[in-house]
């Protein structure tokens, strides 16, 4: 049977269509659907997908959450999104890692629920601007509360943009929108496109200008790719949105080619830009040496920078090649699950097998759509379990059934996995990243090796002899 119903799911048989053990039939996996209430899902909400994933990475904008205090509290400095204070005009932003250090919120109370929160939002915008007059923009997120009480956040932001003479942008991300974080990505892509793209012009342009879209600089990933691309002669005009300044988002229309790294959270804006401004985009993948080299070569061909791209590949691949071969020898045959939020399950499955010798026996995603599952299916061997929106009880059952050597997952699954004796590393936020590019792939190999081989996992049993 290609679809699998876990024992723990016998009371919720609809889960069966979400779990496919790959066979020759290439069955369609049920995905991007509402979660079964109470099933111990790992999914989050639209606010997490919007502010958490995308706008929280912008380094010079005030993030203002229009909500009771919780939504602001939870989205403060949680994603590993470092940023540097350099701005495109050469100025230095006065606070480094501003996006990690500060969050702003309207702290709605009972009276605001009854009488509306718009007045408070206006005051908050004015006060936030007064506290940080140097900020380039204010990004306002609406939430479940403000969605339900009907605050017109768009109108307030429009009014305030004129009043403070600075972009105040509304992101309508009530947590209940859509089935997962994924809706928040989409809303945020649309808002950035509608409200910002095309509103500014870059200080100068070249024929090598590109936008790096869907790269959020998790643990410094963006800086690795940026280094490669810059060294081969490309000019990163905009980042969407890792280590990005607000202005960069406003001139994305001037790119010559858009590169889409996280294809789940950011293909929307690349499509919109292509449609309106005719700028083509390419889906890129820099995870692992082979994908990284393939994609650098592709860019070399596109911009007629073949020699330059080869030089970059040689320089950086050369630095890690030998060490990676050693890790491959050590890791060959180890069984691994990849439980990612979105596309890392299909980014990493082939590289981990081919370049590190690992045996991928399960892949999963919290919020992928059918195009993502098509790639996931195409990139695993028969017999691999593919799960959509897995819940923690299914993870437990899988571990007990097919005890893997390692799980790549999030912090919520990590400690659960430990309790059943299986090491786990954080693949959303990383352990000792960056994980992208050549040196990143070596970091990942080291973390995988160190976790699988940590002596603690061999000390679990108290031996009496």
């Amino acid at each position, binding site marked *: 049977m290609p679809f699998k119903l876990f024992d723990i799911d016998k009371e919720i048989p609809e889960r069966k269509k979400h779990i496919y053990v790959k066979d020759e039939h290439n069955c369609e996996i049920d995905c991007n659907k509402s979660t079964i209430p109470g099933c111990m899902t790992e999914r989050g909400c639209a606010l997490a997908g919007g502010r958490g994933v995308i706008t929280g990475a912008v380094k010079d904008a005030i993030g203002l959450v229009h909500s009771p205090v919780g939504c*602001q509290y939870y989205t403060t400095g949680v994603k590993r999104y470092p940023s540097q204070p350099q701005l495109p005009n050469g100025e230095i932003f006065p606070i480094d890692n501003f996006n990690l250090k500060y969050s702003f919120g309207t702290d709605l109370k009972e009276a605001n629920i009854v009488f509306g929160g718009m007045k408070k939002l206006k005051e908050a915008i004015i006060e936030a601007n007064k506290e940080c007059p140097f900020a380039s923009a204010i990004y306002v997120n609406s939430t479940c509360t403000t969605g339900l009480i009907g605050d017109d956040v768009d109108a307030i932001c429009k009014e305030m943009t004129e009043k403070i003479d600075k972009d105040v942008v509304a992101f309508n991300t009530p947590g209940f929108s859509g089935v997962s974080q994924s809706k928040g990505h989409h809303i945020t892509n649309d808002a950035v496109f509608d409200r910002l793209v095309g509103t500014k012009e870059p200080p100068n342009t070249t024929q090598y200008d590109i936008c790096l879209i869907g790269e959020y600089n998790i643990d410094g990933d963006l800086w690795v790719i940026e280094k490669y691309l810059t060294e081969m002669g490309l000019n990163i005009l905009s980042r969407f949105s890792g280590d990005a300044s607000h202005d960069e988002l406003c001139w994305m229309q001037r790119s010559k080619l858009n590169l889409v790294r996280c294809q789940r959270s950011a293909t929307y804006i690349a499509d919109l830009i292509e449609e309106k401004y005719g700028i083509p985009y390419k889906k890129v993948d820099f995870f692992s040496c082979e994908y990284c080299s393939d994609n650098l070569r592709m860019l070399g061909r596109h911009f007629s920078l073949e020699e330059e791209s080869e030089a970059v590949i040689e320089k950086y691949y050369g630095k890690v090649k030998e060490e990676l071969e050693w890790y491959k020898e050590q890791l060959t045959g180890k069984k691994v699950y990849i439980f990612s939020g979105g596309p890392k399950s299909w980014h990493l499955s082939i590289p981990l097998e081919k370049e590190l010798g690992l045996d991928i026996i399960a892949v999963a995603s919290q919020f992928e759509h059918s195009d993502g599952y098509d790639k996931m299916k195409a990139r695993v061997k028969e017999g691999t379990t593919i799960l959509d929106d897995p819940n923690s009880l299914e993870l437990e059952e899988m571990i007990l059934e097919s005890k893997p050597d390692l799980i790549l997952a999030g912090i919520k699954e990590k400690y659960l996995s430990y309790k059943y004796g299986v090491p786990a590393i954080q693949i959303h936020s990383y352990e000792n990243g960056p994980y992208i590019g050549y040196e990143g792939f070596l970091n990942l190999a080291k973390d995988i090796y160190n976790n699988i081989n940590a002596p603690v996992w061999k000390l679990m049993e108290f031996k009496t002899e």
Partner: protein
Amino acid sequence: MSVNVSGRDRQVIINPLVTCMPMGAMWAVLGINRGIPLVQGSQGCSTFVRYHLARHFREPIEIAVSSFHESTAVFGGKKNLNISLKTIVQRQNPDLIGVVTTCSSEIIGDDVYGFVESNKEELKDLGHDNTEIIPINTPSFAGSHFVGYNKAVDALIKNLTVINENNEGDDNKINIIPGLLNPGDVNEIKHILDVMHVPYTILTDISETFNSPLNPKKQEHPYFGKGGTTVDEIRNISANKGTISITKYAKTGAETLEQTHKVPAVTDNLPPIGIKGTDDFIMTVNKLTKHDILDTLMTERGLTLDLMADVSARYLAGRKVVIFGDPTLVTGLTSFIIEIGMEPVMVTTGSEEKTFPTDIENMSKGQNIDVITEGDLKVVEDYVKDKDNGVELILGSSEARFINYDTGIPLVRFGFPVYDRVGYHSQPIVGYRGAKRVVEMITNEVLAKYYEEKHWKLQQ
């Protein structure tokens, strides 16, 4: 007046020191043996809490959610709750589900009490009647996580505790409502009671559920953390000799027990932090139970005093300290900071605790203390960065790490959340032994920061 009370001078919150009600309620429910919180709301309301608790405790945090989507906003959350309860009961068979409401469910007007009642019938018909289902109203906009915790503990007591007509039960057993203390603190309170041979029920006990041993062979599936207060224990607390609420923000449950079951409530004491706070706690237990205060505790007290004598005048005297966090912990630590001869110059909690300024005023002995009500982390930052204030030490959570990086002023971590160091959740700050640990942490930070430059002063 030596205490200056002021509010935040702006409405916008910059880096809050508190979160909203539901997290407190989830915390309390996770202290129940085989208990599961079910969040009646959007997925973020559970997943963010799981993330924050997991990174602090480095433990699995299993919380269910009824997954509100657009249709729920239109049609209400009855169906979501109904499916959730059935799914949880059938798959995990917990002893208790705490249904934690959110801003969404409260705004759309879900009658959670009514929903739960009708579901109980349905579950009974399905042959599942051994799971207690407790509705807990925690509209996020109506209070902080401290208030949510209080509401949850009270809801558990109101719904579970039965009249003990025969007045049966352990002699001299007492109830403790610990508040949002760390496992290490709850363990220290248990240690004091164990030394005094006083039996107790902790309402609720997260000391093991948030700090579970790694022993894969014995790990049950579905996962429940080890330990926690059993539902049966809570049923039977009405005959106990008294209830001590360690924190002021979580005293409603103690008051309920007093009003409904005549269990004396002790709710307004200093927390057992520092010497006087711990003395008071032990005297309270002694008065309630008449159990002796044994030498073991006096030895612990003496060891802490011995260290205080060693370091207080020599290294700590007059140094200026800023303290922020949980109102009870800040109150206790302020008292203790004064006991070790340091000077608390500014304290803030971010919470709505009304008596906080008075409590600080009552313990100040001529020091000038700035008390900022409903502060946020930016208030702390601005104060610490103002050189005129001469701050030499910060006591607070990991959230202040950037202030520490920017200024070099040492940060001694306590409370929640501490995610950038290890061991803080499993070690106490309460009791005499906790006090000793606090003095050690503070002194070592002071030595590293203020003495290493003139290292010869450290020779003896």
